[in-house]
């Protein structure tokens, strides 16, 4: 509880003016509720747990709303609080499994991609359209989301922190108390698995 309180305080500048006009629970829920829930589900996969953390985020942020200075948007502020709660949870749950990921090649998915000489063992399919056009296709984005949800929890947590939250490697190391090599290997395996999943399931 104290840890959570500290995490919130870390994000809130001192002596800030009260939010004006937007500080009603209804407005917060209607504007940011679904977004925060999607964010939490993407990281945790468990909808019930995601709902609990979103609830906790709204309640603790609302309690501390007088301290919000307005340097960032309310959405960014809420996401930061939620992210810290998720990191706290992931760190407790997954630290041992993060530390075990330290070798680039020690993964069956990666080994299957290459032959003994390190050459691709099979031809890579074209995914069709240009990257920009591909990202506009909702079927592709649905498939991407499905592949992301299939990543093992320890890989997904770090991958989301790096690629969706856009935290630096140093920040991830600090927040999860793991080495930069752990982070790099996790990110490499995540990208290789996502690519493999999209290759197998996406038909252009």
């Amino acid at each position, binding site marked *: 509880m104290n840890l959570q309180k500290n995490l919130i305080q870390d994000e809130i500048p001192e002596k800030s003016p009260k939010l004006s006009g937007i500080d009603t629970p209804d407005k917060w829920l209607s504007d940011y509720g679904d977004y925060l829930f999607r964010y939490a589900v993407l990281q945790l996969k468990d909808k019930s747990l995601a709902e609990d953390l979103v609830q906790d985020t709204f309640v603790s942020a609302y309690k501390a709303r007088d301290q919000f200075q307005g340097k960032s948007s309310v959405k960014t502020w809420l996401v930061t609080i939620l992210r810290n709660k998720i990191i706290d949870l992931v760190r407790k749950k997954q630290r041992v499994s993060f530390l075990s990921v330290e070798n680039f090649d020690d993964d069956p998915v990666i080994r299957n991609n290459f032959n003994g000489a390190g050459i691709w063992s099979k031809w890579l399919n074209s995914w069709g359209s240009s990257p920009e056009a591909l990202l506009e296709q909702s079927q592709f984005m649905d498939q991407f989301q499905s592949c992301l949800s299939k990543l093992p929890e320890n890989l997904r947590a770090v991958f989301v922190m*790096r690629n969706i939250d856009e935290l630096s490697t140093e920040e991830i190391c600090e927040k999860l108390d793991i080495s930069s090599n752990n982070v790099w290997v996790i990110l490499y395996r995540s990208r290789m698995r996502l690519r493999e999943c999209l290759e197998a399931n996406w038909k252009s």
Partner: protein
Amino acid sequence: MEEPDKNNSAISLKSFLCCQEYSKLCCLGKDSNLSLASRIAKSFHHLFCFTCRRFSKQINVIDGACKKVLEKESESCKLSEDAKNRIKSLMKEE
């Protein structure tokens, strides 16, 4: 942040990379600063290997998809009305 030290066996650099080493550098380059030698070796391989050029494009698509995935609204992933009402009540108690 610099790429992993060669001596820690994370990446072994050679004059000519194989596809597996290219794939590592391609991903690593997104999260750290590659050394000049690594960048040259990677570019050289990229120039001559069609499959790795396709791999590189696919990885860029994956990174691009990450930036869009949260913006996409989904009917199957919404906070339920019950949950919204419960949270509102809790907030109003504060």
